[in-house]
């Protein structure tokens, strides 16, 4: 089942009633609120797609006396800029989502982990937080939010690397399990949600789970904010309903000559023109579902683009951003880059690409975190679909 492309305005709509909505929501019971979230079908908008209601329930079930809620604003995936816009336009919705979560899981301290590239947003965000703290006082809720600045590391968008970074360490991902809902920041139960996810929880509490659930298709409910860039006459941020085909997306946003779309950023998949019609945007197709720190990146390439250059750029990115902790990722990313260069120069036969595809699969299975595992997504989808461009 597919849907027509539908533009929505839920996230960015500002009706000035957030205080009333928050008050009404906080008056309801924890169990009701979690049931609403689960019924809505909301999944994490950072890319991994974990059901948000379940995450909150797991943290609520842990009886530790200290817990944390963290808003992940380390938006580092190439081609993604929607969280920046959400924090600029509607920070109060994100903060309201954090407050409700805090009440449900029983925590007093929240953080916004903001990437350093967005330092210029800090004064604006601090104003919003100041207003929010006044509101918390008014509702007699003991909950504070602080901004924690990142320092330029893509990997810190991975939740456990983010905790390490906040603890003053190198941003190297931990082994999972234990999961953050039991063992997160400082070893305490922690809910970590993407900026957009928290903003969606506000909409769900405002409009009810049915309205959210009516949008989208079976496993992908609701709307999603997409960051559209590349060869498009109208780059920007668009809230669209889940379930459209890539063809419909390209018809609306492409420049008429799109040969491929990269869905989900450098960690996502490259879809060639011949598969536009069959590709549906949503979690079940694992299309926006695998990208590591941030979902919703849509980069359009037209026929003037060399896909070799695109892949080269992604691999440069991964080589630099690999944290270096595990060998498959540290060495694998470098070998993939050197490998495609060698094939291009004619130093290796074209069959060497098959070996590289094998290496990418090994990385998918053996790398410690999502970064190393998802290099294979873009690598395999570009090499397999544009083999001739890799060789000649």
């Amino acid at each position, binding site marked *: 089942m597919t849907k027509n492309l539908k533009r929505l305005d839920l996230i960015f709509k500002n009706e000035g009633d957030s205080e009333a909505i928050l008050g009404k929501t906080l008056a309801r019971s924890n169990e009701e609120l979690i049931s609403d979230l689960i019924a809505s079908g909301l999944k994490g908008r950072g890319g991994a797609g974990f059901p948000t209601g379940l995450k909150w329930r797991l943290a609520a079930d842990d009886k530790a006396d200290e817990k944390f809620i963290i808003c992940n604003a380390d*938006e*580092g*995936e*190439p*081609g*993604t*800029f929607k*969280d*920046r816009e959400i924090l600029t336009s509607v920070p109060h919705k994100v903060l309201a989502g954090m407050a409700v979560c805090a009440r449900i899981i029983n925590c007093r301290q929240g953080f916004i982990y903001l*990437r*350093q*590239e*967005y*330092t*210029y947003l800090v004064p604006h965000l601090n104003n919003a937080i100041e207003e929010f703290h006044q509101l918390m006082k008014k509702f007699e809720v003991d909950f504070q939010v602080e901004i*924690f*600045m*990142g*320092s*330029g*590391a*893509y990997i810190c968008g991975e939740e456990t690397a983010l905790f390490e*970074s*906040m*603890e*003053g*360490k*190198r*941003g190297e991902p931990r082994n999972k399990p234990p999961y953050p809902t039991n063992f997160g920041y*400082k070893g305490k139960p922690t809910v970590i949600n993407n900026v957009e996810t928290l903003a969606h929880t506000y909409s769900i509490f405002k409009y009810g789970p049915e309205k959210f659930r009516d949008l989208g298709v079976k496993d992908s409910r609701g709307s999603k904010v997409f*960051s*559209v*860039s*590349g*060869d498009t006459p109208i*780059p*920007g*941020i668009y809230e669209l309903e889940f379930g459209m085909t890539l063809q419909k997306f390209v018809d609306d946003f492409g420049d008429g000559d799109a040969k491929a779309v*990269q869905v989900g950023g*450098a960690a996502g998949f490259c879809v060639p023109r011949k598969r536009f019609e069959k590709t549906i945007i949503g979690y079940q197709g694992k299309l926006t579902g695998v990208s590591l720190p941030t979902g919703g990146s849509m*980069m359009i*390439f037209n026929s003037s*683009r060399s896909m070799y*250059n*695109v892949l080269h*750029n*992604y691999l*440069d*990115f991964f080589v*630099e*951003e690999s*944290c270096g902790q595990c060998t498959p990722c540290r060495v694998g990313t470098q070998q993939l880059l050197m490998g495609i260069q060698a094939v291009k120069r004619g130093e290796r036969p074209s069959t060497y690409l098959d070996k590289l595809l094998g290496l990418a699969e090994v990385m998918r299975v053996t790398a410690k975190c999502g970064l190393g595992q998802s290099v294979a997504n873009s690598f395999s989808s570009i090499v397999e679909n544009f083999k001739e461009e890799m060789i000649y």
Partner: protein
Amino acid sequence: MSPIQEIIQKVSASHGTERESLLPILQAIYAKNHILTEEDMIEVARELDISAAHVYGTATFYSFLETQQSGKYIIRLCRTITCMMHGKNIILQELERLLKIKPGQTTPDGIFTLTETNCLGQCHKGPAMLVNDTPHTDLTPESIREIIDKYRREALQ
């Protein structure tokens, strides 16, 4: 009290003296001096009561912290895919011509450092760059000249 100790005290007043304060402290020192020296890192290690090797390990992990001297204005030009597609190389050439340095270098007068960086989250307005904390987008060779002139004037005043 040394200037570094003052920064440490100021940050730990709001963040505490646990290791969780390490990144904010390093960020504050770097924002002021545009370098993290060995002496700074040893001092931070002593104040937080952790090993200097841990401080060094953290400091060198992050791309926005450097252990060598950067200029007053750090230019970070985005080199990721969409900025590259929209003419990042022309902007880089123009920056190199204007500043007479290559990426990774600092002008002899200590005003500008030029580096390339990964995605800045301004993909719909590429090419983009940061000058210290300020983003500049939709760059053209002409706008680059004006931007550089503006910062140079500021530095010389």
